[in-house]
């Protein structure tokens, strides 16, 4: 399967998920368990994506310049920097560490 196929499939699923919400009767929202799972899963996925991108290369766990990016981003977030500044801080940290010869 080409990447295009999976991209378009993801797009169809995304729209179907959003639209399905508009078709559901409002009383279904009383199902707290379903809402809770959507909430915990969002947190779990984002936490997972953060560490996968920071510490893994394929199937290997690695420590490289991306650790610096993670730390820089965390500091920026503690200082309440806006999203774009956080992203730039992460990029700059990784780039500078590589320039210094690490990772």
């Amino acid at each position, binding site marked *: 399967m080409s990447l295009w196929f999976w991209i378009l499939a993801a797009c169809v699923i995304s729209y179907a998920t959003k639209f399905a919400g508009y078709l559901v009767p409002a009383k279904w929202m009383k199902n707290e368990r379903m809402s809770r799972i959507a909430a915990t899963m969002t947190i779990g996925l984002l936490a997972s994506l953060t560490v996968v991108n920071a510490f*893994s290369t394929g199937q290997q766990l690695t420590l490289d310049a991306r650790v610096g990016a993670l730390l820089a981003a965390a500091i920026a977030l503690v200082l309440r920097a806006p999203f774009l500044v956080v992203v730039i801080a992460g990029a700059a940290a990784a780039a500078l560490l590589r320039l210094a010869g690490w990772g």
Partner: protein
Amino acid sequence: MVKILQSPAVKVGLSISIATGLYGISFGALAVASGLDIWQTIALSLLLFSGGSQFAFIGVVSGGGTGLAAMSASALLGIRNGIYGMQMNALLSPRSWRKLVAAQVTIDESTATASGQQDPAEQRRGFWTAGVGIFLLWNLFTAVGALAGNALGDPKQWGLDGAAVAAFLALLWPRLKGKEPAAIAVVCALATLLAVPFVPSGVPILVAAAVAAVIGWFTHKPVPQGMAPDIEPYAEPYSEHDCAHMVLPEDGASARPGRREGGQG
């Protein structure tokens, strides 16, 4: 026109549109760095249009994961948009073709903008201003980022892999208020790292999703802020109240899955 610009909901919607639209640049640049071409990058912003899911898709691809794993991570992260759709349907009741358009622009920010307003007309204005505004700017800046990223050459030299790490942490951060969401994040992060050496790329993310779903199924206390949209457009006076103001017009008590014990605020 002047009158519309005086609407508080429109003002909030416009400022959120600019702030959110701008980070389309980082998505565009990261997407081409992860191996997508410019048209694939543009297609994701135009058709998928949900920041978290889009970053998840390219995050899995850049880590060497399969298209199936990328699609799955994106789909799971998009589940919350379905919940927002239910809330917005109850709040705004869009008719006919508007329902089709409203669905596409149902994301964290448009939901947050609408549900922070009390007046139904303002809720409607807030939703459409933020939804359509972000859609236009997000797509414009995605294209800018993709073109710029393509011209940069080796993405690692510019730290773009570090930018992806920072982007995911920044998406996670607003959801970590309180002990329970933080504990879930730590458990899922550890589960991911444990799984990395043993399963193909992309799958550790799905393992974490499964762990998170099990936690959600068995925990009895709601996770208050996890369901709150990423952005809090109404810093005051609502910031102390989580999203307890997000209630349905009728039968409001059932509206917020994340309401705390002891009632509002």
